[in-house]
């Protein structure tokens, strides 16, 4: 049901996106799209003292993906790298108010997390494991 999917939290971030935009010279940038619906999300991050010091998202897509991206920037901001590593699908969905998304729309919600993780690993000189990538798409 719409009320199940378009939770207050999602509608709030969708209508009033926080941290949308670009950083001046980000230390890491990642971008990906969901070929099924054309959602596009880009994440830009800066780190200092082992923490996320600045983060912005940009993109185009449905309410779910854009709200998820915006919400995620707030969750990540200020966290240590180890804390950010631990953010998974469940953490994300809880923060979105556990919407009932179904198998297709859940990909919209997860895309920003995959992009953010990709940017993090890029900064660390690592790359996303196939397992984690699968769990997010």
């Amino acid at each position, binding site marked *: 049901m719409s009320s199940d999917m378009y939770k207050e939290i999602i509608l709030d971030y969708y209508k009033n996106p926080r941290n949308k935009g670009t950083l001046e010279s980000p230390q890491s940038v990642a971008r990906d799209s969901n070929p*099924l*619906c*054309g959602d596009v999300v880009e994440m830009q991050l800066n780190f200092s003292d082992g923490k996320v010091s600045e983060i912005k998202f940009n993109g*185009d897509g449905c309410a779910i993906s854009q709200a998820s991206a915006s919400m995620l920037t707030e969750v990540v901001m200020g966290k240590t790298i180890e804390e950010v590593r631990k953010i998974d699908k469940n953490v994300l969905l809880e923060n979105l108010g556990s919407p009932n998304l179904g198998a297709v729309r859940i990909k919209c919600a997860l895309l920003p997390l995959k992009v953010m993780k990709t940017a993090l690993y890029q900064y660390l000189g690592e790359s996303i494991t196939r397992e984690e990538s699968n769990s997010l798409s």
Partner: protein
Amino acid sequence: MLEPEIAAHPLDLEKIRLDFPILKRTVHGKRLVYLDNAATTQKPQQVIDAISDYYSNYNSNIHRSVHLLAEEATEAFENTRLKVQNFINAQSTDEIVFTKNATEALNVAARCTTSSLKPGDKIVVTEMDHHSNFVPWQQIAKEKRAQLEIVFTTEDYEIDESDLESKLDGAKIFAFTHMSNVLGTINNARKFTRIAHEKGALVVLDGAQSAPHIPVNVQDIGCDYFALSAHKMLGPTGVGCLYGKRDLLLKAPPFLLGGDMIREVHRDRTTWNDLPWKFEAGTSNIADVIAFAAALDYLTRLGMKNLQIHEQEICKAVLAELSKIEDLEIYGPKDPERRGAVFAFNLGGIHAHDIASILDAEGIAIRSGHHCAQILMEKLGVPATSRASFYLYNGYDDVDALSKGLHKVREVLN
């Protein structure tokens, strides 16, 4: 279609709906309003029963066997071929090849028409073609170093005729859709076929959306190949048909190779079976081909002309209702006589997936995305659209439901 010469009479929706068991179900507690018919249609009990009856009473492999089950199954299977022949008015059952869907039919047509293509030869398609009638041509063009030309769509969502004329110059093949699965545009297949033939090009017509909705007469149109999908016209999934003119199919190489499509296999060479079996390798989808006959019977009984009139009435209602919704843009012709009842639209800046999800919560099934027509999306300048498509069991109540649902979308997301 050999349409009986009777006065058109309106469809009895109440009676029709009783034939479709799925229409009794609810979705999120609401009545199911199924408006995703361009993707696949629902099935009447008659089709479902034909499948059960086959498996319960005369399931058998066909053609090469002499026992009674095999004879019964073979007869029923070949009977569907005859019904398809009559439904699209082909000249002979030799011209009707069963495939697994329209996509396979189009791939076969692409192989049939290009086996002697030379580098530099021209293949023409249109901007409004479905990926299944675009990607095969694009890749064969690459493979054979042929030239692919894409005819423009006008601002009125029609094929640009002057562009068509010029691009057809010197073309070997013209592949186009009879009815667009996005815009709803019904192309003048007869006229375009005549033009293409005058220029010396073979014509492959994608009938995946036309065969379910309007009377089709391949001899009258004059096209060389015609593809359809059973699941888009009340039939089961897993069955498509390729019509091809007999002399062309005779000369064309086979496609899939293996059992049933051969005459004689030797260590160093193989000869092919007669038409149409030369193109049917391996065990066919016997049950579903047999059940497809029940779908064709259903459509024929209603009358394709009546169905078309019904859909034109629905078209008028949809165009009237949706025009009342602010910021709603429909991509497609405004004239109900020139279009089918499939409506691609966008609503303000709201993403198509959000529209589809909120409508789903209201029990309304529509589709959102690029509808396997990315070239057209690019042309329209949108990443995706919503799409509502109607069929013979849809009525004014469904149009109302869609309109109310779209107002709800606004409410939730504005």
